[in-house]
């Protein structure tokens, strides 16, 4: 609960700050907090991934982009009133909906009734792998993981296509600086 509150506090910082460098560093802290929350919620595999991906690789990529672009955000031209109202209404609707959800941590919630007991009971017999997450990931739901791997492959190829090769500097109206 303390961790979740800390995460909410960091989110306020992310929303308010205008220096993108600070925002990215706060994002790294946020990811580490998220990883701690995942450990508390018994998702050790997810925590490991979040700590290495969210706090490690994506922070480095964001900083690399900031190095290539610029680190200060301009003041927004529009008033943020309309987005605020939209976000507020969405939030109220979601809170109203949350009362119908099963309370946190009970063992007889619908999510624990369907396929999860099958995985937990049969994983060791079917695959000899005690870590159920691994056996579900690679064996029971192997198609999913093949698809995810293909998505990562596609994203890697797309980044290569966008950024590799010569930077074509074309003079003309497109390249002129914009007035502030």
């Amino acid at each position, binding site marked *: 609960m303390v961790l979740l509150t800390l995460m909410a506090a960091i989110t306020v910082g992310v929303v308010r700050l205008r220096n993108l460098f600070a925002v990215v560093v706060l994002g790294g802290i946020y990811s580490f907090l998220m990883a701690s929350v995942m450990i508390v919620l018994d998702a*050790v*595999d997810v*925590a*490991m*991934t979040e700590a*290495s*991906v969210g706090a*490690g*690789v994506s922070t*480095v*990529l964001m900083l*690399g*982009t900031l*190095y*290539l672009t610029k680190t200060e955000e301009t003041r927004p031209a529009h008033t943020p009133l309309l987005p605020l109202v939209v976000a507020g209404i969405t939030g109220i609707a979601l809170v109203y909906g949350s009362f119908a959800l099963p309370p946190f941590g009970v063992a007889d919630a619908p999510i624990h009734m369907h396929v999860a007991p099958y995985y937990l009971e049969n994983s060791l*017999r*079917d*695959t*000899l*792998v*005690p*870590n159920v*997450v*691994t*056996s579900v*990931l*690679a*064996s029971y739901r*192997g*198609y999913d*993981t*093949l698809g995810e*791997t*293909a998505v*990562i*492959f596609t*994203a*890697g*190829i797309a*980044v*290569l296509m966008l*950024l*590799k090769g010569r*930077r074509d500097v074309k003079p003309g109206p497109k390249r002129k600086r914009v007035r502030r």
Partner: protein
Amino acid sequence: MRLDIVFRVAAKMFIPFILVFALYVQFHGDFGPGGGFQAGVMAGAMVIFYAIIFGLEAAQRIVPPRVVELMVPAGVAIYAGVGVASMLLGENFLNYSPFAHDPAHGQEYGILLVEAGVFVTVSGTMTVIFYTFVGRGR
């Protein structure tokens, strides 16, 4: 950064352990938390760390971009190849049962192979993305 001896020595000490830990996470994923995704990201992070401390050229001498770009499709090929192999052995696509004398052992080997494919793709993609971003900046 390049001249800072503390960083260089510390990096030299850390990097082998990061690589060993990534391989541990990869092969111990059956018994504890871990697996191909996490290990791949860690291996990619090791290359990124090395490139940050010692410069992009030094990193690309050790892990050439050509190899990394080959790793990206190779992992998917390993994964799909395991599926095709199981089909050729008379089972459904991605059903690993016929890989060993009894189905459960077959599943274990299949999971190991598939995780290796995931590892190759993920580590290759992370490294390749970092190389292209940094290569753009100069």
